[in-house]
């Protein structure tokens, strides 16, 4: 974790984290959440998908919601139960038109160096939804039986 700029409160299977809105804070926050999921017994296969989706969600929050500004704050909550892992990330930005967000061209191929994040999240998670005009994202990954 990054000194006093991030705070962590952990209770049972719920976890909350606040990080600064710059890219240097992402890796530590992401790794802390992954540690928490491991403590909760989330399996490797689910964890890999969550890791990538989490990276994308934080990257979008930092770049689009915070303009990579460390004076801004991103809030994240993680809930784990027997059915699913649910992650909510809220940034202070104005959001975006989620219905207009496209990741690929009509032929399904994107040859630019951006625009794959939402596509990846949708492919890796069981549910991806937005609220507050797009400034809050909710990611849900169902857990395999037996975990």
């Amino acid at each position: 974790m990054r000194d006093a700029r991030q705070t962590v409160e952990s209770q049972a299977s719920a976890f909350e984290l606040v990080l600064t809105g710059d890219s240097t804070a992402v890796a530590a926050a992401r790794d802390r959440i992954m540690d928490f999921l491991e403590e909760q017994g989330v399996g490797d296969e689910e964890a890999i998908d969550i890791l990538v989706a989490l990276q994308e969600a934080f990257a979008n929050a930092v770049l689009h919601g915070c303009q990579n500004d460390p004076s801004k704050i991103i809030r994240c909550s993680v809930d784990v139960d027997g059915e699913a892992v649910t992650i909510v990330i809220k940034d202070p930005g104005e959001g975006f038109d989620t219905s207009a967000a496209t990741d690929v061209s009509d032929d399904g191929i994107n040859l630019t160096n951006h625009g794959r994040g939402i596509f990846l999240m949708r492919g890796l998670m069981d549910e991806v939804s937005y609220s507050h005009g797009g400034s809050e994202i909710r990611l849900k990954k169902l857990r395999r039986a037996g975990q």
Partner: protein
Amino acid sequence: MLRVEIRSQPPVATLYCSGRIVLGVEAETLRCMAGSRPEQNLIVDLRQVQAIDAAGLGLLVELHCRALENEGDFTLANPSPKVRRLMALTNLESVLQFEDGAGFELSCCDERAMTA
């Protein structure tokens, strides 16, 4: 963290990556090291890459397009099933060139390494 080791056998340079190719200093490091190579053909070996994100995938597409502009080849070698799955999810498998085992037997004419 990302570590990149370069071996040159003109006109081919092989960039051996280990770690994560993700947004931030890791992706920028690979961009700088690949962009500075004078060789016409690049191989990026992904055998030791544990994770890649959209920024990393975008960088690979960028390097692919740059190679095309320079009439060179850009090849991805030995991606793990995890990395390959992400490429499939983003429809990049039909765009990028893959070769398992490529680059591993190159003799070492020029070697540099950088860790980010």
